[in-house]
């Protein structure tokens, strides 16, 4: 019987201000039932102020192969590491190098 049920992924928001996080998955005949079940399974102790329920077949994911997401190695000019020389350069002007970050 179980195999004609659809798998749904469940996401929950723990508090206002927090993004939804994956909480688990469940099997159900349809979306309405999945929502009811999810509230039962995941909200009994008010763990979440809101839940999202999504059929697994509607999820598209990346990466598809083994290539990692994002460039390898990391692009240094996109992160702070690419500009570590500025601390040194500020010293030449008597600055202590990080004041502008307050």
């Amino acid at each position, binding site marked *: 019987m179980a195999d004609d049920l659809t798998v749904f992924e469940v996401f929950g*928001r723990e508090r*206002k*201000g927090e*993004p939804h996080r994956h909480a688990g998955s469940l099997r159900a005949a349809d979306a309405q039932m999945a929502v009811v079940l999810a509230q039962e399974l995941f909200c009994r102790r008010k763990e979440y102020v*809101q839940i999202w329920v999504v059929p697994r077949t509607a999820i598209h994911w990346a990466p598809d192969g083994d290539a990692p997401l994002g460039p390898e190695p990391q*692009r240094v*000019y*996109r*992160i*702070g590491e*690419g*500009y570590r*020389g*500025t601390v040194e*350069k*500020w010293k*030449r*002007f*008597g*600055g202590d190098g990080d*004041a*502008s*970050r*307050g």
Partner: protein
Amino acid sequence: MSDGRLEAFEARIARGDLVEADDWMPEEYRRQCFRLIVTHANSELMGALPEREWIPRAPGLKRKLSVLSKVQDEIGHAQMIYRVAEDLARPFGISREQMLDDLIEGKAKFHNVFSYPAPTWADVGVIAWLVDGAALETQGALLRTSYAPYARILRRICAEEAIHLKHGEDIVLTLASGTRAQRAMLQDAIQRWWQPLLHFFGPPDELSPNSERTFRWRIRTRTNEQLRQSFLRKYAPKVLSLGMEIPDPELRLDPETGDWHYGDPDWNEFWRVVKGGGARTEARLELRRMTREQQGWVLAAMADPTSAA
């Protein structure tokens, strides 16, 4: 009936609660949030244009990559913010398309600074360092805004702006320690950008009905003047330490208060620019209009139902 909800809503806000996209909110709260957020999105999109002109001319492979990456981030910020604005404005029936049309037809506002020309490579350093520094002040203060979807994207935007700041510093420091011509180019750029930077924070808050509500509902948490002072405290000393002059004879630090006193930055110029009178405003809006016409067919191809996979 809704008065009950208004009280409850205001009590929640006063307690420091946050508002999510699908919570009930007074229509005026939604309108005020939308006004602030769509102006921010427009500013990110228009803000990309002065530096974008320098991607093809950036000197050296590292600078070419970092200017391109920075402008890409600004477009990425616009994407995140328009998405928040779209979800917020759905009950008003305003789409992203409508927001872009209003921007192009000069009906929508964006930050004054992005109407100014960027004639030299030094402008790229000054914009990335000082204009992004100013933006980081206002956005940092908005991290505590009550509208949660906006606060969430601001965390990422501020983290990326902090990297843009280092990229800008690196250019400015290289010019400041370079040839006489490079130092002169930097001084000229600071000369042109100082007043627009003071304008960036807006005139001192006269408690207009708008600003009073944005504070009561904790959409905004710091006044224009507080943000301007915070900017001056951080950046005026650093500009001076480079041996550069600041074009304001009255600029001085008040040792008791730690505040900077500055000469009147000509608010008529501010209002003239914000109402679309900036030197490059029309040219940049025209650029966006032309692009929209040339690429209408791509948008049609994307929306064409026959092609849905």
